[in-house]
């Protein structure tokens, strides 16, 4: 872990008496390596280090009897701060509230749609689920099966209809049947796919979702920044859901995405079952990124 790495990198400083600013610089290099290995974006790491450098070079560290603990604490605190201070809930202000899920192919949107529906149902809401994925074979069936598993109404449609048409009809159904939340699953898409990004934009314009959430895989690497930035610029995100977090991916991509978009991470997907959704708490992810 980071504290051990710092020990190793700055070994022998005790013989010199205490840490010098040069030792601190060495320590910062170690922190940089640790963050890069955790998949934090190269440029985000640079900015991050600049923020902690001043504190790391302060008297509180240089004079400390436990300088490594001090440094690790500074990094940890800054990680928690950057990841978003405290947990942020869902904005469920309008009726029906529309939650629009978007993201790259295979990130976990369909499964997460089911998870969110169950999460909200348990909290006394009446969600309606709909899939606008008219491209992937059996995509609509997949969400339909998940809805049945958790006994939540599903707005069924055929892939021969358009995504926008399905979405608008589902909205009408939600309104007419007193559902207070409409969760809209969308097809996986590349942030550089003009047509599909336009489709996403028109879905947003038509549905006016209160929440537009990027569903992103925790194991993403350096490219996470490009993906999040582009989705945010094109469509406007209100939050991020990180999936497959129960694996051993360090999750540095989460820090990068939060940093470049400013969007709060709202939930973590922690398994394949529909119960496997947790409200995001920055402390746990911060410890994980630190290794």
């Amino acid at each position, binding site marked *: 872990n980071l504290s051990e790495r710092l020990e190793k990198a700055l070994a022998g400083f005790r013989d010199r008496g205490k840490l010098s600013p040069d030792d601190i610089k060495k320590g910062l290099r170690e922190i940089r390596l640790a963050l890069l290995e955790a998949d934090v974006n190269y440029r985000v790491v640079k900015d991050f280090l600049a923020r902690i450098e001043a504190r790391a070079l302060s008297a509180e560290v240089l004079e400390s009897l436990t300088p490594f603990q001090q440094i690790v604490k500074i990094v940890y605190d800054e990680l928690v701060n950057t990841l978003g201070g405290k947990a942020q809930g869902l904005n469920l202000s309008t009726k029906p509230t529309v939650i629009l899920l978007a993201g790259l*192919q295979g990130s976990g949107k369909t499964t997460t749609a089911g998870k969110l529906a169950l999460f909200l149902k348990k909290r006394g809401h009446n969600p309606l689920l709909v899939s606008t994925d008219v491209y992937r074979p059996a995509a609509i069936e997949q969400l339909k099966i998940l809805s049945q598993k958790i006994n939540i109404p599903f707005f069924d449609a055929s892939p021969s209809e358009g995504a926008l048409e399905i979405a608008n009809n589902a909205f009408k159904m939600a309104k007419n049947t007193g559902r207070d939340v409409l969760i809209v699953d969308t097809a996986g898409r590349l942030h550089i796919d003009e047509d599909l990004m336009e489709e996403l934009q028109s879905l947003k314009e038509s549905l006016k979702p209160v929440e537009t959430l990027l569903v992103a895989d925790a194991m993403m690497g350096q490219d996470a920044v490009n993906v999040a930035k582009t989705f945010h610029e094109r469509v406007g995100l209100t939050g991020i859901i990180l999936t497959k977090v129960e694996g051993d991916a360090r999750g540095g991509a989460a820090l990068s995405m939060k940093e470049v978009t400013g969007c709060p991470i709202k939930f973590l997907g922690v398994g394949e079952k529909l119960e496997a959704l947790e409200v995001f708490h920055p402390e746990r992810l911060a410890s994980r990124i630190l290794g």
Partner: protein
Amino acid sequence: FVVEKLIDLAFLEELEEKLILSDLGVETTMALLDPFKNKILKGEPVTTSDLKRELKRISLNLLADYEKPFPPDGKPGVLFFLGVNGVGKTTTIAKLALKLKEANKKVLLIAGDTFRAAAIDQLKKWGERLNIPVVAQQEGADASSVIYQGLEKALREDYDFVLIDTAGRLHTKYNLMEELKKMYRVMDKLVPREKRVNLLVLDATTGQNAISQAEHFSKAIPIDALIITKMDGTAKGGIALAVSHKYKLPILFIGLGEKAEDLLAFDKEAFISAILP
């Protein structure tokens, strides 16, 4: 004409950024650049073209080669697909099945994902589109028994190739890795190892976790080669270089989209040139 420039530490730092942004990883990047850093510190002149040529040469050598024929020679050739959730296994099976069918081979698909909602449906739909038969049971069936049933059919009806889909699984889940080993033993009962190719599917957008994936999957069953999907995005898939080198896993194909035609034989030169232009 081009003026030949000598590299300096600033140049190397820019190159380091580019390589790390491609997901090459800190370890591989340092291994590649440190020797040149040392040369500069010793005052040895290195031109930009020397550097680029050398890095290309070294990187190409880091990529493992597939030393056997692909597709495999015996009948039925069994292509077994594994990987973590959502990387593109099912879609890649459809793509490779199409290639084999276009080569006039008799192809069979086995719906070995008996866990995820509509997984069997998804593969069946691909089978219908491509006019390739799919062996399946119902959701919740034992995956190994579906595989066994499918291989029996392949042997009985003289199929050239069998492509086996499995459920996505995180490499850190003990019981899922045990299930994988069980599938491997079951395949062993019906088809000799040399006719089987175990393909680990990796997503090009994956970061350093691909190393852990390769590590854990290789420990569970022998992996023969890699397929890197979603190379049509902006991720360069640099981590595949580290995985290929560390675990001696050749990359056979790359996925470049969501259609059945979007699978390309792996081109080492093109892959390296995208990372080291």
